[in-house]
C-alpha cells in the first residue's frame, strides 16, 4: 500500500519537474483560453470499467450554506437568471418533501424536515433522458456519467420531460448575458440547448475531484468508483443506510443520500 502511494507520488513529482521545463522552453503553450492541463488520458477508456458515484451526507449539510452551489456554477459558467422560467441549475437545494416526494415514511423527524437537501443529476444507470434524446446529444459515457454533447443538442427538450428529477434546464436566452464572473475552466453554452451537471467530467480528466466536493467545508460529499469495492464510497455504502431519489422508478441513480 505504502509503496504504491510513494510510487504515485514520485511519478507525479517527476512529472511536475518535466512540466516546469516544458513551460520554460515553450513546449507547453502558455495559452489562457479554457486551460489545457496536461497530462491527458492517452487511450480510449474501457467502457463500463468505472462507474462514478456520489454520496451526500445530509446530516452534515448546513441549511443556508450555498458554497458548493456557487463553486459549481462559477466553475462551469452556469448563468444566473432571476426568473423561474429562465433559471439554470446544475446543483441546488430544496426541502425533504421536494427532494424525496415519494418517500413513504409517515412521521419524518422535524430535524429532517428542517434540513435542506442537495439535488443534482443522478447519472442514472437506466437514464430515461438518454432514451428520449433523438440526436444522442444526451448519452451514457464509458464511465457511467450521463453526458451532454452540446454540439449536437437541438433543444427539443424531450430529455427535460423524461428526467424524473428536474435535473435539466433549458437556455431560453443567451446564457452569456447572465454570467457575471466568467471562468476560463469550462466553455459556456448557447441559447437553445439544454444543460445539466456533468459530474465534473472536465475535472476528472485532470485527476481532480468534483468542484462541489472540493468547495464543501463540511465534507458532505464522497465521490468515487461504484464498481470498486475498496473505494471510499463503496465502504460507506456498505456500513451506512442510504437512500436514493425515487428509487421505485428503476432509473438506478448513482447519487446516494445519508439521511
Amino acid at each position: 500500500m505504502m509503496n504504491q502511494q510513494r510510487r504515485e507520488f514520485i511519478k507525479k513529482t517527476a512529472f511536475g519537474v518535466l512540466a516546469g521545463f516544458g513551460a520554460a522552453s515553450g513546449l507547453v503553450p502558455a495559452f489562457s483560453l479554457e486551460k489545457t492541463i496536461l497530462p491527458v488520458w492517452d487511450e480510449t477508456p474501457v467502457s463500463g470499467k468505472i462507474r462514478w458515484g456520489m454520496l451526500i451526507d445530509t446530516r452534515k449539510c448546513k441549511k443556508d450554506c450555498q458554497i458548493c452551489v456557487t463553486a459549481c456554477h462559477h466553475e462551469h459558467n452556469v448563468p444566473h437568471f432571476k426568473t423561474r422560467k429562465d433559471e439554470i441549475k446544475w446543483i441546488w437545494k430544496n426541502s425533504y418533501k421536494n427532494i424525496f416526494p415519494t418517500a413513504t415514511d409517515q412521521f419524518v423527524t422535524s430535524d429532517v424536515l428542517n434540513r435542506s437537501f442537495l439535488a443534482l443529476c443522478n447519472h442514472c444507470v437506466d437514464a430515461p433522458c438518454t432514451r428520449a434524446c433523438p440526436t444522442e446529444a444526451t448519452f451514457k459515457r464509458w464511465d457511467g456519467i450521463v453526458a451532454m454533447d452540446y454540439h449536437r443538442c437541438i433543444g427539443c427538450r424531450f430529455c427535460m420531460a423524461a428526467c424524473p428529477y428536474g435535473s435539466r434546464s433549458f437556455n431560453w436566452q443567451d446564457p452569456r448575458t447572465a454570467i457575471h464572473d466568467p471562468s476560463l475552466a469550462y466553455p459556456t453554452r448557447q441559447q437553445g440547448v439544454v444543460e445539466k451537471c456533468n459530474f465534473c467530467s472536465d475535472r476528472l480528466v485532470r485527476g481532480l475531484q468534483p468542484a462541489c466536493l472540493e468547495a464543501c467545508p463540511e465534507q458532505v460529499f464522497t465521490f468515487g468508483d461504484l464498481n470498486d469495492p475498496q473505494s471510499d464510497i463503496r465502504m460507506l455504502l456498505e456500513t451506512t443506510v442510504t437512500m436514493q431519489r425515487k428509487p421505485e422508478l428503476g432509473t438506478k441513480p448513482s447519487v446516494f443520500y445519508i439521511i
Partner: protein
Amino acid sequence: MKNSKLFWTITIFSFVLFGLFNLFRQGEAETPKVPAPPQVAIDSTKCIAPADSMRANHMQVLYKWRNSSVRTGHRVHVAANGSRFEKSLNTCLGCHDNKLFCFNCHMYANVKPKCWNCHLSPMETP
C-alpha cells in the same frame, strides 16, 4: 553557453527540491481519490499536418476531434509522423496565437462556424 548554465542550474535545483519533498512526504502519503491520468508526451511546437492540408481540412479534423474526445473519451491525436497532440482548440490556438487567426479567413470567406457560441474565442480572452 548561458543557456546550458541555466539548464544545469534548473536541473540541479529541481532534483534538490524533489529530494526535499520526498523527505517531508514520508509520513503523510494519501491515496488519490480520482486516478491521476497517465502521462503522455505532448508536443505543441509543430502543426499536426502541413499547412495546405490543414487549410483545406481543419474543419473535418476538428469535427473528428470533438466527436472522439467528447463521445469516446479518446483525447490524444497521433499525427502521421507519430507526434501526439491533445484534441483541444487550445492545441491549435496555443501556437496560432494571433487573435485574428481564425477570423481573418472566415470573414473573407464569409463562413460562420459556431465554435465561439460556447467556447471562448481568442478575441474574448485577455
